[in-house]
């Protein structure tokens, strides 16, 4: 839910800076449909109870990195939009740490304690080495974690409750908020479209008056 707040923050910033909600309609997101199946696959597999190592590989370990492919295509094809490069950077950070740690996002006990996630802590102590329920996170010790600084080691403010998150998450949040706010104020694409429409209108008026 924390990342949805980034959109809300973007809308508020956009409105405060004189942007208009209706301008969002002019934002052209190429291949936006790619996002939907990727996230549906993620949600479905996050809901599935985690598999113990005895039962084989947790499907999320395979499908989470796979779901990044359509998301990467979406980001790259829209990289010209404001905030998208920050999102690309955040995505690269998250994808790197997930890939380096076997397909799941590592977190650690210290971060969970700071976030007050006692249920997750108990679960990690009872079933070590298994993904946390309804999450893509796995609790690893800092020594076991590759790219520790990119993992879920930060703790969000209580909105409404604290949550562990990564540097990549923060970059994505800032990117999304920037894109939303800029789109409400009129992005470069939107301005180009406005100019094109104005030119077209002038041509039609010229033809009619001739």
């Amino acid at each position, binding site marked *: 839910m924390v990342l949805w707040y980034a959109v809300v923050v973007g809308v508020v910033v956009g409105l405060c800076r004189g942007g208009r909600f209706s301008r969002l309609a002019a934002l052209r*997101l190429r291949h936006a449909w790619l996002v939907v199946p990727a996230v549906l696959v993620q949600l479905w597999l996050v809901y599935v109870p985690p598999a113990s190592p005895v039962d084989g590989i947790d499907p999320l370990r395979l499908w989470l990195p796979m779901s990044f492919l359509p998301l990467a295509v979406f980001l790259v094809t829209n990289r010209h939009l404001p905030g998208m490069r920050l999102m690309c950077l955040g995505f690269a950070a998250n994808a790197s740490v997930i890939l380096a740690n076997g397909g799941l996002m590592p977190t650690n006990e210290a971060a969970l304690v700071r976030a007050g996630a006692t249920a997750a802590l108990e679960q990690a102590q009872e079933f070590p080495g298994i993904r946390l329920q309804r999450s893509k996170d796995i609790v690893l010790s800092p020594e076991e974690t590759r790219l520790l600084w990119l993992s879920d080691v930060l703790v969000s403010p209580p909105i409404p*409750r604290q949550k562990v998150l990564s540097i*990549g998450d923060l970059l994505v949040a800032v990117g999304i908020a920037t894109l939303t706010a800029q789109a409400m104020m009129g992005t470069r694409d939107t301005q180009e479209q406005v100019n094109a429409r104005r030119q077209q209108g002038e041509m039609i008026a010229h033809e009619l008056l001739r």
Partner: protein
Amino acid sequence: MERFSRLVATGVRNRVWRVLWVLVVLGTTAVGLTAPSDTDLP
């Protein structure tokens, strides 16, 4: 006049749908790029 009103209504409806679509895509992208966890789920 009636035709004009219908055109305006359709335009407004489409614009509303586009704004909603953009918001849904942005929110869903945020969830997808950071991978969902329990707090993202209903």
